[in-house]
């Protein structure tokens, strides 16, 4: 349900003219809900930024997500490949 809630809040924010990007852990949910831009990461629920105590991995995930902000072919779901 978290991934649905993220998408719905994200859409409300994007409607206010703010560029948004989200992390998603469930591609199936993002495909149906359709947030504007999301990065699908291959980690278990509870671990959207990969691993606790791993700033380097967390930064790579954030950078991959932020790289989507200028994209305007929405909705888009990009895979995080490390």
């Amino acid at each position, binding site marked *: 349900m978290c991934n649905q809630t993220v998408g719905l*809040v994200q859409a409300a924010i994007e409607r206010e003219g703010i560029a948004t990007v989200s992390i998603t852990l469930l591609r199936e949910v993002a495909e149906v809900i359709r947030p504007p831009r999301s990065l699908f990461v291959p980690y278990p629920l509870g671990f959207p930024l990969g691993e606790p105590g791993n700033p380097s991995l967390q930064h790579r995930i954030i950078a991959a997500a932020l790289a989507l*902000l200028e994209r305007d072919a929405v909705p888009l779901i990009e895979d995080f490949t490390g």
Partner: protein
Amino acid sequence: MANYAEMSLYVRLFMKKYPFSKFRIEPVPNSPLRKPLSTSTVALVTTAGLCPPGQPPFNQKLKMGDPSWREIPNGVETRTLIESHRSQSFDHRGIEADRNVAFPLDRFRELEAAGQIGRLNHRHFSFMGSIIGPRPLIEQTAPEVARLLRADGVDVAFLTPL
């Protein structure tokens, strides 16, 4: 990787039957970033159910979910945030060990210090994602937060589930 197959049977059956398509975003709004990230104001929004110390926790007893939000001051010490997400469908130990695993404020502070983002907004927002009946969220609480972010002059919102 998270997918339906790894969840408990109960959660799996719930997810299979849940009418996600009823809440499909249509049309998909589109406001791509038109300025450099290095001059943009960024806010974080999470559905991890995080509460700053001293604020009331999310209501875990509402059957359809608690659609309310909490404001997280930018100056908060991340490890003091209290996780009150009710869902038992995932492992809570990651966020207990490191809040950045779902609310990467320390990482964004590093990006701000390095000049890769313009600045962090003075506040961020938290929801508890376990909302089965999202109408109040769609109609009231999500637009409230969106308007506050706009009034703050935020250019970019970075959203994370748990």
